[in-house]
């Protein structure tokens, strides 16, 4: 061995490998836990001063709502305007009545997206009536539409600005990142604090959830316009506004329609959740059903939500496709003929709307034409629960007693300083010193909020769910990357799972396992796994064919190929999959508070329903955000590629 290589070897040995450090950290933490467990803990304290301070804040805001100018502005102007928007849309749709809305939407779909999608839309709206959920569906639709209008009003201008100004783009990206890792649950309470319960709070919460997507995709579209084209327009003396109007917006048209599509899907998912702050509609039906553990009636409403998601998705995606086709091939020769048909169809739709409005039929869908899944689904659920009792209970108990309880016990009994130190150490090793500081501080803040124990309960469930999700996601992703046939078979399921609002995931879990912590974990798995699978598959498939070919030609087995070439080369995607898997899992574990998940999620839900619990609920919302920040930072090595995921993970 030459001198130089020997020196390099020594230098390498001098700096211990990351793996060794991780092992040391784990060993040290375990040792310290054994020695110090039970000391320095923070048992849950219902009387935390933070809770009462927040309760007082609410009392103060309630008392000054009519006099404080800022509050008056928020309530009277912002809330008033948004309420007006929501109620106008809602009243209009209800007044038109089901025949008019159904035919009118069908005609609109025909004009925007063509015959096939018009049929889907017609069938979807008929289904709302058949399910006996017309009124609720219209409430949800109205709130969704109003929220989309709001999101676009704010998101389009900001997105265009971010598309045109590098500075603004750089400034707004971190804000969007934070908005997107905030679990939806967390910002309902502060909104209620300022805007009270009602349509305005629901629409604002929804818009906050959806706007990051609007801004990102809009900016992407504007930025996608080739520099040469813009320069050509400028060289002809176009003003900045002319460049925007005549070059950037028309050329980004397809992406802008896509932005509407994604905004709408995000909005629908969130509108359902705003049922927690008393927004009417399908979400309310689900929550009532979930709280009564009535799987059948939750299924009924869940089905309506899924249908609504499909209808809105196909309608806007169809419109985007049409925009693209027109951009590509130019308008066809029989343009005039088609335009005449479209005008005819729209006229028929309009007449239907007017007739329906004048007839005053309203939401009165004929009773004879209804069909209910409540009983069959409940029967099925009972049958499954009894027939597979051993299996489901066995699985549930295995995970609960074998994994959740022990981990929860470890976390709760560990000294606070040890947990914070271990997390900071992990962040340091996995990411950076800055990540370690942020993650450690986030946990410290959770302790100061007075919610340490509940946070540890949530953390335990989250870690277990994340481990299951990542493990299974990795296997399924690898399978999909290695077999085109399997990937093709799996894809529709992933697509479906990714367009569905979060609540829907609770249903199958609830049907099988009843209201427990394990149910939340299963729901989190269903919610997060598709993203993980996608990212793993994309990462593995992204390994250049040339490299794979070279390895194969030197005689590697498929197994060696996977371990020595494909997995190492797709490291970035795998890390991103882990990061996103964990953040998504947290969001869903918290929603599991609705169905017996316990921990912070339950505190949030309780905060909405009981006035005395408000302070704790609000604090729990903040604690969830802090946990999210902590988990994100620890796994942040892949954070740079987060954008791609947001594009991939629709709702």
């Amino acid at each position: 061995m030459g001198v130089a290589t020997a020196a390099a070897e020594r230098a390498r040995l001098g700096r211990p490998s990351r793996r060794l450090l991780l092992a040391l950290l784990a060993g040290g933490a375990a040792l310290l836990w054994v020695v110090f467990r039970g000391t320095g803990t923070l048992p849950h304290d219902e009387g935390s001063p933070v809770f009462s301070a927040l309760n007082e804040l609410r009392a103060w805001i309630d008392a000054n709502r009519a006099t404080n100018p800022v509050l008056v502005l928020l309530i009277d102007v912002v809330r008033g305007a948004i309420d007006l928007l929501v109620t106008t849309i809602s009243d209009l749709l209800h007044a038109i009545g089901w025949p008019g809305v159904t035919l009118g939407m069908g005609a609109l779909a025909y004009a925007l997206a063509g015959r096939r999608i018009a049929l889907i839309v017609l069938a979807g709206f008929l289904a709302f009536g058949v399910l006996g959920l017309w009124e609720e569906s219209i409430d949800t639709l109205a709130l969704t539409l109003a929220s989309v209008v709001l999101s676009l009003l704010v998101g389009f201008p900001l997105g265009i600005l971010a598309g045109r100004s590098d500075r603004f783009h750089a400034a707004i990206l971190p804000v969007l990142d934070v908005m997107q890792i905030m679990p939806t649950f967390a910002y309902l309470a502060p909104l209620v604090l300022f805007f009270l319960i009602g349509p305005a709070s629901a629409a604002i919460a929804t818009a906050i959830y959806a706007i990051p997507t609007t801004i990102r995709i809009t900016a992407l579209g504007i930025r996608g316009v080739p520099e040469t084209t813009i320069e050509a327009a400028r060289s002809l003396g176009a003003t900045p506004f002319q460049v925007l109007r005549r070059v950037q917006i028309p050329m980004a048209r397809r992406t802008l329609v896509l932005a509407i599509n994604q905004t709408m899907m995000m909005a629908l998912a969130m509108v359902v959740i705003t049922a927690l702050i008393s927004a009417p509609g399908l979400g309310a039906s689900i929550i009532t059903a979930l709280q009564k553990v009535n799987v059948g009636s939750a299924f009924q409403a869940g089905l309506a939500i899924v249908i609504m998601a499909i209808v809105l998705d196909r309608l806007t995606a169809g419109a985007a496709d049409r925009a693209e086709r027109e951009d590509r091939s130019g308008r066809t020769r029989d343009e005039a003929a088609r335009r005449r048909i479209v005008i005819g169809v729209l006229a028929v739709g309009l007449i239907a709307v007017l007739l329906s409005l004048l007839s005053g039929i309203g939401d009165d869908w004929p009773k004879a034409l209804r069909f209910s899944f409540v009983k069959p689904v409940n029967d099925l659920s009972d049958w499954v629960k009894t027939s597979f009792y051993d299996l489901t209970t066995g699985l549930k108990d295995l995970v609960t007693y074998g994994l959740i309880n022990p981990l929860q016990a470890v976390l709760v009994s560990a000294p606070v300083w040890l947990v914070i130190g271990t997390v900071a150490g992990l962040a340091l090793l996995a990411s950076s010193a800055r990540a370690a500081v942020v993650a450690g501080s986030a946990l410290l803040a959770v302790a100061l909020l007075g919610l340490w124990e509940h946070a540890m309960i949530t953390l335990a469930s989250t870690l277990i769910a994340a481990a299951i999700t990542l493990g299974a996601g990795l296997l399924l992703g690898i399978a999909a990357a290695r077999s085109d046939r399997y990937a093709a078979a799996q894809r529709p399921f992933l697509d479906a799972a990714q367009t569905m609002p979060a609540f829907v995931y609770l249903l199958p879990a609830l049907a099988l396992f009843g209201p427990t912590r394990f149910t939340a974990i299963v729901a989190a798995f269903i919610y997060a796994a598709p993203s993980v699978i996608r990212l793993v598959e994309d990462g593995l498939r992204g390994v250049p064919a040339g490299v794979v070919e070279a390895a194969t030609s030197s005689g590697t087995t498929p197994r060696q190929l996977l371990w020595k070439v494909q997995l190492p080369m797709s490291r970035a995607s795998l890390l991103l999959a882990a990061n996103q898997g964990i953040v998504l899992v947290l969001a869903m574990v918290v929603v599991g508070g609705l169905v017996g998940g316990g921990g912070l999620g339950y505190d949030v839900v309780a905060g909405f329903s009981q006035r005395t619990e408000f302070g704790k609920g609000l604090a729990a919302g903040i604690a969830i955000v802090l946990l999210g920040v902590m988990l994100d930072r620890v796994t942040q090595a892949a954070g740079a590629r987060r954008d791609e995921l947001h594009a991939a993970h629709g709702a």
Partner: protein
Amino acid sequence: MVERAGAIDVHGLWKIFGPEERRLSAPPVDEPSAAFRARTGSTIAVRDLSFSIARGEVFVVMGLSGSGKSTLVRCLTRLIEPTFGELRLDGEDVRAMDERRLRELRRRTVSMVFQHFGLLPHRRVIENVAFGLEIRGEPKGERLRRAEEMLDLVGLSHVAASYPDQLSGGMQQRVGLARALAVDPEVMLFDEPFSALDPLIRRDMQAEVKRLHREQGRTMVFITHDLAEALKLGDRILVMREGAAVQLGTPAEIVGAPADDYVADFVRDVPRSHVLTLRWVMRPLAPGEPAGDGPAFSAETVIRDALPAAAASEAPLRVFEGGVVVGLVERGRILGLIAGAGEPAAGASESV
């Protein structure tokens, strides 16, 4: 040739990209570009350029990739804001113009053709051609009529209603050309307009530009890194390296007397006899020297065209200018030039 306005004067022009641009109060005249970049991280894309372009001239800018050609041509209408220097168009100070006047300049006086065309995919060909007129607010009928005229001029009337992506690259660039012509500019700027096209189409397009120049006599600034193109089109050629001018001269000067190795490298493969005229190789007639009876040629004859006569005649060629013999060309000099031995006697290019 129509006499038009459109003279351009550039003096001491600099463009620096990067954070250092705003910190500098005077051009870093003494610091070499590489050292400047190493020290500040900023790039000197255009370095102390001065030249004047006459009305109706075709002025070619040539240089390797990254030498600052595109930056220079964009500085002329301030699509890129120059860092230092003077810029005049027909005597008017371009750098002193406000936004409105500048737009006016771009809308009426100077137009540009781009390497990647920059057409609007969502508009028909005719609407693309009319785009500049639309921008300056001309009524629809008027601008479509004008656009049709332009399409006619570039031979594309038959595809007026197509969309750009239905056309070949060469046709798309004709649309770009028609769009630039439609505003009836005094000056046309071309940034490597033909380098994305295949060689045959490129030759057609070059002929097209030559024809347009002959018929309309507009001032043209033409960027290329293709020497053959530069020689074919240019009245004068500016050779750039790392933002600075290396040589400015006529095609013959560039080929016949490269200022340094960089330029010599560029022109190495050009058959000089195809570019240089007899003036370059003639020996001036000493006072009282008999001209003899060799074949007679004008001083502007390209050497190649005189070769058959030179081969057939023992006597030196007589070179005429203004009706009188000004010099003689011996066969040996021509052979020497073709063999690349020895520099031609005459001609020093404009020093830059």
